């Protein structure tokens, strides 16, 4: 009875304000080291961006976080605001979403394309509905409690569909939506599991500039209104620089910088590895102005490690 649940760390292990604490994460595929001793933290009410050149190991970090890969080494602590801490590396894939409330989207959109938009969002609430319907039994017997739970699920879906302007098309097959809408729907679906941490894998990929701006608004509203942490992989620097509160830069699986957008922007290591030597060209005009690039505040470059 007093046995400690191994997926729950001791209280003392966790820094007070971190929602997600990644410590010494290493992932090897055979001889290839995809992530090398990565440590960072992500906080509630913040958008944390992970950036880096292609092949830097960004998606691998996500796959470790969401249980698709088992990390070779490392500790991934999710400090759930309501349910307490979870050690994600010890949890079976689907349980990370089920218990620890970590939701994710995919680089290549993975919708249930032959199901309707609304059904996609209802499926996302599977666990809540299963509980409410006593594993579907209550529903099979046409009991009120399931009807009620389903109605609530539809309400939540409606809330998110309204937010992204898909309400009118709620009965379309998800696969028939235009690309940009599919991206947004995938974010809605992830939000429907009511996550504590939302992991977005390149949400702006393939969007046009207008859609990209709308995405910024959506993500900022998720951060501000839902009170959750957002972890973001993104290539589109205009998105990253405008909405991130905190940026982690990876190169060849190693962290080369970690800090706020301004600090990262001006970090020489980042400029060298990621933005290229010819910095002015890589930076959108408005950011150049916003940052007042002439000031050149020194980056808070950290070595790897964090708090071991």
């Amino acid at each position, binding site marked *: 009875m007093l046995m400690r649940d191994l997926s729950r760390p001791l209280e003392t292990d966790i820094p007070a304000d971190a929602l997600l604490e990644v410590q010494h994460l290493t992932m090897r*595929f055979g001889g290839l080291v995809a992530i090398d001793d990565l440590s960072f933290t992500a906080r509630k009410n913040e958008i944390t961006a992970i950036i880096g050149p292609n092949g830097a190991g960004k998606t691998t970090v996500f796959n470790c976080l969401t249980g*698709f890969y088992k990390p070779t080494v490392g500790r991934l602590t999710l400090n759930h605001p309501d349910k307490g801490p979870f050690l994600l590396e010890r949890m079976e894939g689907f349980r990370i979403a089920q218990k620890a409330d970590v939701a994710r989207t995919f680089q290549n959109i993975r919708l249930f394309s032959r199901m309707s938009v609304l059904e996609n969002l209802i499926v996302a609430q599977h666990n809540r509905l299963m509980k409410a319907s006593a594993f579907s039994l209550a529903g099979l017997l046409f009991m009120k409690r399931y009807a009620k739970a389903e109605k609530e699920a539809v309400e939540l879906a409606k809330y998110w569909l309204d937010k992204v302007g898909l309400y009118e098309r709620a009965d379309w097959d998800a696969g028939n939506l235009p690309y940009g809408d599919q991206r947004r729907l995938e974010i809605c679906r992830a939000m429907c599991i009511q996550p504590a941490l939302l992991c977005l894998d390149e949400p702006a990929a393939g969007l046009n500039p207008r859609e990209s701006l709308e995405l910024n608004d959506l993500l900022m509203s998720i951060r501000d209104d839902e009170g959750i942490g957002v972890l973001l992989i993104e290539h589109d620097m205009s998105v990253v620089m405008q909405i991130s509160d905190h940026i982690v830069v990876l190169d060849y699986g190693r962290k080369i910088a970690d800090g706020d957008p301004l600090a990262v922007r001006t970090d020489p290591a980042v400029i060298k590895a990621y933005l290229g030597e010819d910095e002015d060209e890589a930076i959108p005009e408005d950011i150049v102005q916003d940052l007042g690039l002439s000031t050149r505040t020194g980056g808070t470059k950290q070595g790897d490690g964090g708090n071991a």
Partner: protein
Amino acid sequence: MLAYFLQQLINGLTLGSIYGLIAIGYTMVYGIIGMINFAHGEIFMIGAFVSVIAFLVLGALDITFIPLALLVVLLAAMVFTAAWGWTVERLAYRPLRGSFRLAPLISAIGMSIALQNFVQISQGARVKPIQPVIQGGVVLFTGDEGFTVVMSYLQIFIIILTVVLMAVFTWIITRTSLGRQQRACEQDRMMAGLVGVNVDRTISLTFVMGAVLAAVAGLMVTLQYGVVDFYIGFLAGMKAFTAAVLGGIGSLPGAMLGGILIGLIEAFWSAYFTIEYKDVAVFGVLVLVLIFRPTGLLGRPEVEKV
């Protein structure tokens, strides 16, 4: 009892060689287009029938010089069976490439049923017996209880032929341009097409190669058991597929290894336990392998693409 054991070992190896040859057809097709060619067992059955008929034709032509007869029958079985393998792919699988996941598999099941019944109707449902072609053997060893270990000339023929074919196929896959194209298609069919590999032709040739090996296996079974019927493809196909999975699907040496293991399991199970349940034993092994080592013995671990 050592003698008895050795005899079973030889029998198992022979049987395993046959399964291995069929298994290669499964493994190559799976490697290149990722589908279970369910009709492959029937291709093997057709190979056996062609062998029987070729022997009859030679008999009618009064060709009795055994090495020549074997060579002619081998070539005839290869050519005609290859044509069947090619046609099956062309008619039932190629139109479904890129279609939804289960479609080719179901088409393959349909093809298997159709081929089995086609042969049943065209050649009759009764078993086809042929006269033993290769007789005699060498006594390797006489055990304490007077039990002699015999390796028949037929078993020697089967094992040598298998080794030769394996060598030739390994050479084709690793050294020739066809093999390179196959491996390219295996990795990324679309990219292979873009850099100028004729994907359709490569896939067709894969089916042809699989059918050729199945034809040889068909000939071996005809010689070994002396009887053939339209139903032999089903079980042999199942076991060969099991062998391919056991060895690690997609891997050629794996298919051969798996085939030999399945042959040995079957021989020893029949010898020491009950012959009735030998098929159950084989499938039991399949399930255990899939549970504990889903990639098979020599298969590469699969990293899930997310």
